[in-house]
């Protein structure tokens, strides 16, 4: 077991993929000598050279489109979008090209593409540097969406995403880059579409992903101290969803709290909430609760940003309320 940060874990995983398959290539802004805005690609240019570590001008639409083309041409491109907010410039190649290729063109076509989006708040970067858009991508058939929370999963899910023959949107949370966790030296192969049970409990199911799963785990500890056994499920694969794991848990606990850092309206939590209800309504002992950011842009001001984003305390409170035990 080594202890490693999210950024370093991703770097190792990228290096391993570059090493394993000469078709793998990286594209993005400042991913060369600068090492990426968050240091994820540091050292990769030196190691793999400028043909495979392709530093691009600031041309998100063209770059993602080229990555789709490179995937059609037989490569396995991995694109870094410095802040997920900028993927707004590259929706066309993802939605109208990458996502459709297989369904329309059939077996001749595949699009093994990973788009890494730096998501989330908590760094006071303000309204145009803190978004995620996971909800947009799950709505587009043909795109997979993953969002790791554990440091080990930064590698496991990246491996799975790179080897997947489909376009995968890979959501990395800024707050996880610097987080350190012990990680076993040989990581399991995991399939996209499986959730991870963070801790077990029979009283309530807390569904979360990305940084919110970290907050949920903290909340579960505090809840345990108050005699509430929360089961935390790190959903981690938002498309496809592991409904089997989610359903089993919710039907056992009878209570579901879904936590999402994004604004609630039209968010991923709504989809999960509906599905849980559809599969398990007879088992529910309390209404499903969504805990999300309010429907506002993420403010830059430190106390306001903190107020806007769900955290362990808010999760703990929401879980408490769901248990019928008002504080």
């Amino acid at each position, binding site marked *: 077991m080594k202890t490693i940060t999210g950024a370093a874990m991703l770097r190792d995983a990228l290096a391993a993929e570059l090493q394993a398959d000469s*078709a793998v*290539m990286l594209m993005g802004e400042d991913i060369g000598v600068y090492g990426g805005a968050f240091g994820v690609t540091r050292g990769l240019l030196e190691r793999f050279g400028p*043909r*495979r570590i*392709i530093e*691009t*001008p600031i*041309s998100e*639409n*063209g*770059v*993602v*489109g*080229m*990555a*789709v*083309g*490179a*995937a*059609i*041409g*037989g*490569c396995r*491109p991995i694109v870094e979008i410095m802040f997920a907010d900028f993927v707004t410039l590259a929706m*066309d*190649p993802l939605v*109208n*090209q990458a996502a*459709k290729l*297989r*369904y*329309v*063109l*059939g*077996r*001749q*076509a*595949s*699009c093994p593409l990973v788009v890494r989006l730096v998501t989330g708040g908590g760094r006071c970067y303000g309204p145009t540097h803190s978004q995620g858009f996971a909800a947009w991508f799950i709505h587009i*058939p*043909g795109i*997979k969406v993953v969002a790791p929370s554990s440091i080990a999963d930064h590698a496991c899910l990246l491996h799975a995403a790179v080897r997947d*023959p*489909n376009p995968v949107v890979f959501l990395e949370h800024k707050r996880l880059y610097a987080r350190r966790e012990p990680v076993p030296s040989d990581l399991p192969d995991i399939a996209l579409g499986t959730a991870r049970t963070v801790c077990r409990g029979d009283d309530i199911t807390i569904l979360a992903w990305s940084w919110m799963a970290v907050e949920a785990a903290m909340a579960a500890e505090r809840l345990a101290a108050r005699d509430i056994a929360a089961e935390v499920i790190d959903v981690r694969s938002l498309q496809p969803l592991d409904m089997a794991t989610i359903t089993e848990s919710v039907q056992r606990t009878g209570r579901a709290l879904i936590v999402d850092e994004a604004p609630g309206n039209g968010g991923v939590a709504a989809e999960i909430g509906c599905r849980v209800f559809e599969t398990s309504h007879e088992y529910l002992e309390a209404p499903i609760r969504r805990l999300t950011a309010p429907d506002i842009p993420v403010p830059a001001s430190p106390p306001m940003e903190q107020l806007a984003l769900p955290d362990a305390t808010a999760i703990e409170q929401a879980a408490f309320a769901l248990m019928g035990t008002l504080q």
Partner: protein
Amino acid sequence: MTKQLSASKLRSAYQRMLLIREFELRVERLFLAGKITGTAHLCIGQEATAVGAAMALRKSDALTSTHRGHGHFLARGGNPDRIMAELYGKRSGYSGGRGGSQFMADYRLGYLGANGITGGSLSLATGVALAARLQNSSRVTLCFFGDGASNQGSFHECLNMAALWQLPVIFLCENNGYAMSMPVARSIAGGSIVNRAQAYGMAGEETDGNDLEMVYRAVTDARRRAAKGDGPSLIECHTYRYCGHSRGDPCVYRAPAETVSWRKRDPIQRMRRILLTRGVMAPGEHRLLMQETRRRVQQSVAYAEADAWPKAASLTEGVFA
């Protein structure tokens, strides 16, 4: 300089152009007859560009097309039966009926597909060229696009990156004077598309898109540069579509006289004259070729008519690889 096209090549180019013309005319009628639904953009009048460019490419090369893609596909050797079946929405269509006119491809031919998004294939083509570079492949990629598409931001982004990285890609603009109803004079500041090559330090060439040999030569030269590692080229081919933009276009935005004057520069008639002058085709032969072509097109219609609809059960299959 590129050498002259051989007699047999000229002949087969002519046949391809005839096939495209007849195919498109037939599609037009099938639309009016309600046999084909949805949408289709015909390339009647632009056959020389499609065929001239396609002939200049090698088998291992790739090309991307536009919403106006039947001609490009046929020029590259696409099977008329399967193209027609796709327009009908039938099972044996290139996309099994899922894509329609604007979304079909044959990767084995290196034909990477039409594109419903104006300018959408600019970045795809550039990316394919990037892949070729990474793979040390000698593949050159040609990207057809229209005058209208040149106004998309990705035109700038892709030309810039292609030039920076000296990618083996040929940007071939079919300037047919209009983007739907928008004339070039009102949509392209400065009036010229090829001029934009300069801004990127890229080779640029302007040519008569209705002259097959000129298109062939321009693309052959660009292909040679690309393959040698001398980077991308922008080629502007001046041409014209006689037909409307798509089904139901009343063409109110252009004077009938304009169309008439372009008819005088018809690429097919021009080729016929060349074939006759050079003795590549005997005077009576054209009629035979025409009959053969019409038979081929008729066969594609029969094929499409007889083809089955896609299986209902397949509806949700194959979203993911």
